[in-house]
């Protein structure tokens, strides 16, 4: 698979480490009332869809950026690559 890095252009997926569902960006509030249940869900449960999946790839052997890759798990086709930093900021995260 070739991942079209937003800053570096097309890179071999072998340079990256796969880090799972992009929902892991949304870490639950540890002070929330339902924190235990929310963290159980966060840590262990996955949608695991057959089809389009937004997922985290860490450019470990590259610029060490984290990407959100939208990829089809049935065909391995990649439709969109974003910087995870920008995805998190768009959700109102500060850094």
């Amino acid at each position, binding site marked *: 698979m070739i991942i079209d890095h937003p800053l570096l252009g097309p890179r*071999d997926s072998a340079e990256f480490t796969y880090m*799972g569902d992009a929902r892991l960006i949304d870490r639950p509030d540890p002070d929330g009332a339902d924190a235990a249940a929310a963290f159980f869900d966060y840590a262990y449960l996955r949608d695991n869809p057959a089809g389009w999946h937004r997922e985290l790839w860490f450019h470990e052997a590259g610029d060490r950026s984290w990407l959100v890759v939208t990829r089809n798990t049935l065909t391995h086709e990649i439709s969109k690559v974003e910087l995870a930093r920008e995805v998190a900021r768009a959700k109102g995260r500060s850094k």
Partner: protein
Amino acid sequence: MRYSGFRVIKEALSGHKGWTPAWRDPEPSEHYDIVIIGGGGHGLATAHYLAKEFGQSRIAVIEKGWIGGGNVGRNTTIVRSNYLLDGNEPFYEMSLKLWEGLEQDLNYNAMVSQRGILNLIHSDGQRDAFTRRGNAMILNGADADMLSTADIKKRYPFLNTDDARFPIKGGLAQHRGGTVRHDAVAWGYARSADSRGVDIIQNCEVTGFRIENGVCKGVETSRGFISAGKVGCAVAGNSSRLMSKANMRLPIESHVLQAFVSEGLKPVLPGVITFGAGHFYCSQSDKGGLVFGGDIDGYNSYAQRGNMPVVEDVCEGAMAIFPMLGRARLLRMWGGIMDMSMDGSPIIDTTHIDGLYFNGGWCYGGFKATPASGMSFAHLLAKGEPHPNAAAYRFDRFEKGLMIDEKGMGNQPNLH
């Protein structure tokens, strides 16, 4: 029809006109006491043990394609019980014991071959870890044998024990491990279950569950509604897809695992060997092909095919330990879809929906577990409580911190 050597000779002399189909192709009935979703090794084994060991009747196995078309047809055929942890080892040893009696139990030649499995040791730390593992195996009634370099040289003279990049310093052998003809496992269980009245319904895809007031009443299928007292799901690889129809999210990711077969060679490899300095394992099939594999690709996939980086990694492992393999041509390679669970161990449990039972999360160890999985799932379905050897395979172990993490990798499914 009972199979025997006498029968083969008799049929050979009469033009092979007496053979009958090994199982029926029935139309689905309106109601079954137990419906098992998934006509793979685990589903068919469950049906066999339900009928034979637990005296259940009115059972159906429903399969979206043809039986044995999933992971029981897409593995590297290795059976072993060399696990470390208490939650696992008694279960896998039960499985190995069931493999040992399988052909007599099923009256079917599954080519069970206890040719032995050898895990190579390349460092002192690895020797300590394998010594501990061997002791855990022995404590659970399995066999384990620490081999010296000289022992290994005698059994496998082609291994470089002198000046390899990763020197071979010994090995943990399980002589009762080996290989089994994978398709024959599915066919043997299917034939046996069918002969005990189980309906095996192929080309019948489950499209949904009928759940009323928290009770599962049956399954909607491409061939109509089938009412059921109990529904058992055994579709590892696609567990998340199926259980999402019951609005369940699982502690599972689906990943692709590749495997490879070389062209047929004369006998070179008597047993199963695993490389300890990388992830590579190899055996030789009775047809002569070297069957080998390594790591999963490491990203979510339902594609049943992988990518080149893992092919390269596996071949590097092969060349490190069997340089002779570089001269053999690759005949086939394929991918299978694994239920990778959050701790690397499976789940055999009830669900929060009455009458709906789950069997999955087999990671890439499902084939060797087939008989024990079937026995344990049948126990759970028939008696409503887990088999003692599978009692740790619960859904709530993640919530309660009772993980069975054989590799100590945590909730990172692609590292198990």
